[in-house]
């Protein structure tokens, strides 16, 4: 187990280098000149452009820029944005916000999605099952920004229950609505995955054995059925946590949350290399760690799986 984890962590090192290099190349191959764009519609003064280019190390060949960047990273310097703010500070601001939002969404996925799937799976063909299927179908088929605007209009503008946008991202109650919107799609998938998985395992031999042994119903469902059915769901949830972190651009835009998605979107628009590379690299690491945790959870859920 320890060896396995160590090997996986070591594997992250080349992935880290590859990811930074790729993202670096991609940012610099984006069309347009970030320095000229700073001047907006007005013509850029060539002498000033040259001086700014020098300041941001953009007058060097690409490989030198990359070496310079990596060298700084090893000194824990992620570079500075065009506003003169260190990128590490930008990330320290944005990530907690997004982590809070992602956790709220994650909470809904687990504590609404799973029970819905469980009920639908246990009582297949019942009204509850049909209801879950129809509801999840609706959620899956409506794009998230439509859901977001509808929720905003109804709950904030018409009913006035919540503020239209997030005024203070440290206040978890304000994150409930955006979190629910962000979670909606994955929540539906979790419910459907759980339902299918439960349905299959209900017919498994060990279930029949458990029932025949006369085990109490909650033990059968809790220890045998649910635990075995969770493997595909956990896989999904693990990768989804990564997606929630980086992919919340739309939800963050609607509810004006200054999270990673927003910051990243702006940085890409401005072609702000250090910010983009820094944030995306951290996101890659989040994905890697999440998938490692998922793999380890397999062993917890299914005793047959052993890591040597």
């Amino acid at each position, binding site marked *: 187990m320890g060896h396995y984890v160590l090997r996986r962590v070591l594997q992250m090192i080349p992935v880290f280098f590859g990811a930074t290099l790729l993202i670096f190349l991609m940012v610099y191959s984006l069309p*347009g000149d970030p320095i000229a764009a700073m001047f907006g519609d*007005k013509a850029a003064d060539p002498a000033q452009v040259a001086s700014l280019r020098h300041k941001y190390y953009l007058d060097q060949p690409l490989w030198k820029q990359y070496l310079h960047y990596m060298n700084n990273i090893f000194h824990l310097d992620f570079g500075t944005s065009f506003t003169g703010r260190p990128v590490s500070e930008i990330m320290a*601001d944005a990530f907690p916000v997004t982590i809070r939002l992602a956790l709220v969404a994650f909470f809904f996925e687990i504590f609404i999605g799973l029970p819905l799937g469980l009920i639908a799976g246990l009582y297949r063909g019942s009204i509850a099952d049909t209801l879950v299927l129809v509801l999840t179908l609706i959620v899956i088929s409506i794009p998230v920004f439509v859901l977001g605007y509808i929720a905003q209009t109804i709950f904030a503008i018409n009913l006035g229950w919540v503020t239209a946008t997030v005024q203070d991202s440290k*206040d978890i109650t304000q994150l409930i609505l955006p979190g629910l919107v962000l979670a909606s799609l994955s929540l539906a998938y979790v419910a459907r995955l759980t339902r299918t998985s439960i349905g299959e395992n209900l017919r498994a031999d060990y279930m029949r054995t458990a029932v025949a042994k006369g085990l109490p119903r909650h033990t059968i469902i809790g220890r045998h059925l649910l635990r075995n059915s969770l493997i595909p769901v956990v896989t999904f*949830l693990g990768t989804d946590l990564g997606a929630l972190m980086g992919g919340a651009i739309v939800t963050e*835009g*609607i509810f004006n949350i200054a999270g990673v998605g927003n910051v990243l979107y702006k940085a890409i628009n401005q072609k702000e290399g250090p910010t983009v590379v820094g944030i995306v690299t951290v996101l890659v690491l989040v994905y890697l760690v999440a998938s490692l945790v998922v793999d380890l959870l397999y062993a917890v859920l299914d005793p047959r799986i052993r890591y040597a």
Partner: protein
Amino acid sequence: MPAGTRVRWAVVSATSVALVATGCGSSGDGGSGGGSSDTSKTFTYQSSEPQNPLQPANANETGGGRIVQNLFKGLADYDPSSGKLRMQVAESIDTSDAQTYNVTLKSGWTFHDGTPVTAKSFVDAWNWAANVGNNQINSSWFGDIEGYKDVHPESGSPTTDKMSGLTVQDDTHFTIKLYNKVSYFPYKLGYVAFSPLPEGFFKDPAGYGQKPVGNGPYQFVSWDHNSQVVTKTFANYQGVDKPKNGGVVFKMYTTAEAAYADLQSNNLDVMDQVPPSALANYKNDLGDRAIDAPQGAIQNVGFTLYQPEWQGANTAKVRQGLSMAIDRDTITKTVLQGSRKSATAWVAEGVEGYKSGTCGDFCTYNPDKAKQLIQEGGGVPGNAVKITYNADGGHKEWVDAVCNSIRQATGVNCSGDPKTDFKTARAAITGHQINGMFRTGWVQDYPLNANFLADVYRTGAASNDTGYSSPEFDKLSTEADQAASIQDTATGYQKAEEQLATDMPAIPLWYYRTNSGYSTNVQNVTFDSFGNPAWTQVEVKG
């Protein structure tokens, strides 16, 4: 379920942290009702995260620009209601030859840190900002001042850090000597780049860029990145526009939709521009709190006059014909939902020296005449033309409508040529990589017609994207620059503008408008031609 419990724990701990944080962080902002105003209360304004440090000569985008404008005050500014130049720190700016200006300052002005605003504060600030090594985006604004080329050489390092054209006489007097005669130079001085800077700034420009100290109506309190910039009224402000409120809180929004939703539910007091999706309904939604005001900005389509197909005297007729083929009134009413007003000249409405109808018949929809002119001019090369534009600016709809109008009126095969984003489009336009028409526009730097004409159409002007070069226009505009008074300059430029109707280097389409609104918490909200509210005049209800 280990996974479940672990997550639950994480959420609970996050909540408790949040409770502590909000417990001490709640602000006493908001509160509605009542007709009287409370001068100690702040109001919120929709803003975007500044893209550069908050230094006066480094703020050329609206996010940072608006904040800097409120923190700093230069020699003069523009009256929000009339757009006319208004003295602020300057007692007077006098000249006898339009080349040497004598500035006299009022006494009593101080920076927010208590140090006095003197002639030296201005001269040092300008020398610093003009210096190429200090990387100020608006450094070229100082290009008129003698000695600029020494601190801002085209290549290499500056030979000195002082412009020879700036001389301090005493604490309240200094002179500005220009390279050439520029009669409207005082108008430029109203731009925020010409603000004074306190002594302390020069020791730590980066630090002051994060925590600016100015001399304007509002003083800096805090900058919570990506969230808000808080300012409060400066008690010792000496300007003619004493604030009627307690300060402005600039709230950062990434989308206008989110800001509009907040405005409707009174979480935001004044906004910038309603989102396109709300244009049709915002007057219904907001009633008498809706704003529809003219802006000093114009939308054009320019021609690539540097391409051989568009040279030659006769091609002007083709361009005039294309202009007449555009049904401006219908497009502004339908596609643009009344958010623009058809242009009749190359200078925007409300600007000093604006004269309507300079474009005359050429800006009036007339399909028959359009066809005839295009034929007389030898037709459009290949009977097809493209309009290059940036796809990220909401231009697609009207570009398509303009093309439809041209196609239907004249049979010329017009089509849009979208470029991914603004910077890509700009690179194609300034790099002369296109042939045909392109979207262009001009937002005033200062409300004087010279700004719309000299900076865009004079031979070799920095923003002359069309490559237009007319000896006649150049002669008239140079004459206008040397006029004795600003009024004469404005009249001179009106003559120069007439030349544009003859040559049609760019087709004027429409003028921008401010479509905005405010919450029930505030009153007396008016907008100037820059699209900014008259900040200090906003009243917050008590």
